[in-house]
Structures are given as C-alpha cells and as structure tokens.
C-alpha cells in the first residue's frame, strides 16, 4: 500500500494509492472544488471515474471508514490526540416500531449501554439534549454519542430489542 500525493499546477492535488492487490485508486481535488475519483483495476488500461461534490466525498469517506450501517444512518468518529487518544463516536439511528412510545428512562439507555442520546430529530425539528422523559416515536432520528463499544451495545440492546 503506497500513497503518493502530487500537486499539479493549475489542476489541483492528486492522491494516488496502490492496493496490495495492485489496483490503483486516484483522487483529485480540483481547483474548481469538485473531487474526481478514479479506479484502475490491475491489468486494465482505462480507469473508470466518478466526479463528486465535497458533500458526496465526505459521505463516501464515512462509508469507507466503516461507520455507516444503513444508507440513512451515519457516524463520525473524532479522535482527540491530546487526551490519550480518546476516540468518541457520534452515530445516528432511526427509531424502530419496537421502541416507539417508550421514554429514554424506560429504556435505561445510559445504565445499559453507557451511550448518551444527545439529540432527536423529528420531522425536521431538532430536540437537543432530550430529557429522560422524552418519548420516542417511530421514524425519529436519534443522535447518540459514546465509544464504539457503547454504540455497538446500544445498537444490539436498544435498537433491536
């Protein structure tokens, strides 16, 4: 795996990356702001290309870090290198029918998983820091913060149960 970056005058910055299997992925951040991604399979001569907006590129990045489980659920991991490499993940989930009508307190989210619900988005309105008495409805998008393990627990204990 070798990554090389290169500045092309007038065009932008290129990052090229060869995988262990010999495929090549190249990313260009062009001056116009768009991002072009090329992939070239080993032994193949013509690459295929995709042009992305910055938002699309970030979304793709999130997928590649392995954080996204479903298309409308995404997560961001933040690492604080000054705090002994503390890693905090923020993840969104969609509330299923099974927990609709229950409150945060009923579900004992904090006690069971250690993760915290920091916001709930319902029909384009955001409730930041919902109180323990907050009642979930099916279709709510919840934003949960915690360590990766705590979020896994949250996913298995609360979302699926």
């Amino acid at each position, binding site marked *: 795996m070798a990554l090389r970056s290169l500045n092309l*005058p007038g065009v932008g910055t290129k990052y090229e990356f060869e995988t262990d299997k010999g495929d090549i992925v190249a990313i260009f951040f062009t001056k116009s702001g768009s991002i*072009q991604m090329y992939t070239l399979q080993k032994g193949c001569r013509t690459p295929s290309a995709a042009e992305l907006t910055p938002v699309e590129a970030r979304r793709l990045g999130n997928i590649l870090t392995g954080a996204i489980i479903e298309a409308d659920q995404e997560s961001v991991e933040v690492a604080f290198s000054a705090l002994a490499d503390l890693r905090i993940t923020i993840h969104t989930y969609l509330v299923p029918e099974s927990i609709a009508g229950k409150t945060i307190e009923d579900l004992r989210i904090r006690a069971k998983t250690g993760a915290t619900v920091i916001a709930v988005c319902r029909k384009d309105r955001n409730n930041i820091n919902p109180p323990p008495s907050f009642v979930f409805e099916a279709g709510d998008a919840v934003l949960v913060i915690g360590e990766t393990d705590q979020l896994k627990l949250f996913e298995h204990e609360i979302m699926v149960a």
Partner: protein
Amino acid sequence: MEGIVLALFVCLVLALLSKYLSVPAIPFYILAGVVLGKAGLGLVTSSDISSYIADMGLIFLLFFMGLGIRIDRIAANRAAVLMSGIIDLNVNMLIGFAAAYLLGFSLEESLVIAAAFYISSTAMAVTSLVENRKLMMRESETIVWLMVFEDLVLIIVLALVTAGDQNLIVFAAKILFVLAILYALAHYGKEFLISILDRNDELPIIFTFAAVLITASFAMYLGIPDTLMVIALGAAFATTDPDAFEQHARPFKDVFLVIFFVFFGVTIDLSGGLNWYVIGVICGLAVASKLISGLLTGICIHGSALSGLEIWANTISRGEFSIALAVLYGSPPVAAAIAAMVIVTSIIGAFIAKYATHLRHGIVHLGRRSGPPRRANIRL
C-alpha cells in the same frame, strides 16, 4: 458603453450555450466580436472604456498565470518540465515560423505568429483533462508540466520583444529594481499579506485589485512592460497564499477577459480581405505540428506513440495566450490569422480531446488486425 453591454449580453448567451455543449467558450467570444464589430455588422466599436477594460482582462490573465508559477515546484520537476517542453518548443516554433515566413509575412510578424502558433491554451488543456476525466492518465502530468513550460517561454518572449528597442542595461536594471521590490514585499510583508487575505470583509478583494493595477501603472511609469511585471507580481504573491489571491482575482479575470476576447474580435480588420489560403495553411499546420511534437514527446517520455496521441489531443487548442500575443504585437493581418487559428484549433481540439480514447482504441484495434509484426511496435 452600449457596445460593451451588448457584447457582454451576447457573451453571456454564448457562455451558457458553450457550457451546455461542453465546448470552450473563447472561440465563440471572438466570433461574436468579429460579427458585432468592424469586420461584421459594425454594431459595436471599441472605445477608450472598452480598451481599458480589455487591458485589465489581459493584465489579470497574466497575474493569474504568475500565481501558478511556483519556482520551487518547477525546480523540483526540472527533468519532466524540460524534456517535453524543449521538444514542444522546437517543433512548433520552427514549423510556425517557417510557415508564416514562407506565406509572406515579414520577419517580425512571423516571430509573433510563431509564438502564438507554439503556445497552447492552458485553460482549455486543463478543462479538457478534468471534463473528459483524463486526470489519472500518466500523460496528463506531462501535459500539465508542458503548459508550465510554455508559460515560462511566454515570459521570455514578452521580455525579448519589449527589450528590443531600449537600452538593454537600463531596461534590465529597471526590471530588476521592480522585481526586488516585489520580492521584498512578498518576503518581508508575508504575514501582513496573509493577515489581509484572511479577513472576511471587502479588504482582500480591494487589495488584490489595487495591487495588480498599481504594479501595472508603476511599470508603465518606469517604461518597462506591465505584462511582465504583473506576472512577476503573481509569482511573488505565489510565495504567500496563492489560493486566496486566485479566489479574489478570479471575478475580475473572468469578467474582464470576456471583454478582452470579444473586443479582440471587434477590432479585427478584414478590409484587406481574408486570405483563405493563408488561414487554411496555418490552421492545418497548427493541428499537425502539435501532432508531431506530441508523438515525439510520447515516444521520448512514455515510450509510446499512443501516449503522444493523447498529449496531442489535449494540446491542440490555442487560446488566451495566442490572443494576448496578437493584441500586444500583431498587425491587422497577423491578428486575423491568429484569430482564425485560435477559433479553428480550439474547436477541433475540443472534439479530438473528447474522442481521443476512441481514437486510441481504434488505432490499437487496427494495429492488432494488421498482424503480429506491427503489434510488437504498439505499447500502451
């Protein structure tokens, strides 16, 4: 004033059309100018205001080019820049010069035509690489560095042409004096410049505009070419925060340059009659000579003539710099010939670049069909 408004409106429509068809807009601006101006309907005539704005377009174009010149990066890529650059320079300058001279242009005119004939359009090459998704090709790196080399040659041409009728020592001393001021400003004032550029108010944009115009006026006051000095200003500013300068200078460049192209078209004088023979020969050779230099570069650098084809496809278009040379030094017949060359090569170039991959596949296919002996010669 109405002339400028009419010209701008026509250009706006043409710009929309050219984006929709994804072909370069420059040839259409020039054609619009020819149709609206002296040689055509006579609806638009150039005035003091239009020529002032057109001058600013040229100055901002050259400032932008200067911003792209990073001496440290060029030095780090010397080998790549030099090899392809020298092939391109020799082949195209020689063919361009010989053709112009044999067609009956004077020595001086032939030199201007040769330079305009040689220099490809950086803007069109880069757009073609990005829009046709060719950035990953190894040839694209060669093409990009080729454009940088051509920019450097243009600077030398500008210096040589303007130095011709002056006392060389005084001329060089003046240039060195201004260069020293510019680099001292960029070096010692770097933090100040960056602090200005970081602001969110109108200051960065006023500063950029003023710096370019002041440099140009100061150069004219000293009697040295403003074109050279704004390039030097760009190169000096490139050592601070070139991206910010590009962002602030872009609106001026984009608008003024449209006026520059359209009024170049307006002032074209065809009263001497159009010599279709001359225009046909120059346009044909302009496409052919880049093919020769492209093939040679492809063979020398990538070991493949097919690579050369790809280089050719993206460097056929002549554009902004050829027009700049025509405006600065061209007599009416020279300007008309260069205008025709830019229009023809940029349109042909856009189409060839779009279908270069098919061309390449077609040639490989033919090569395979014609049997094993030739197959050995073709490497991708």
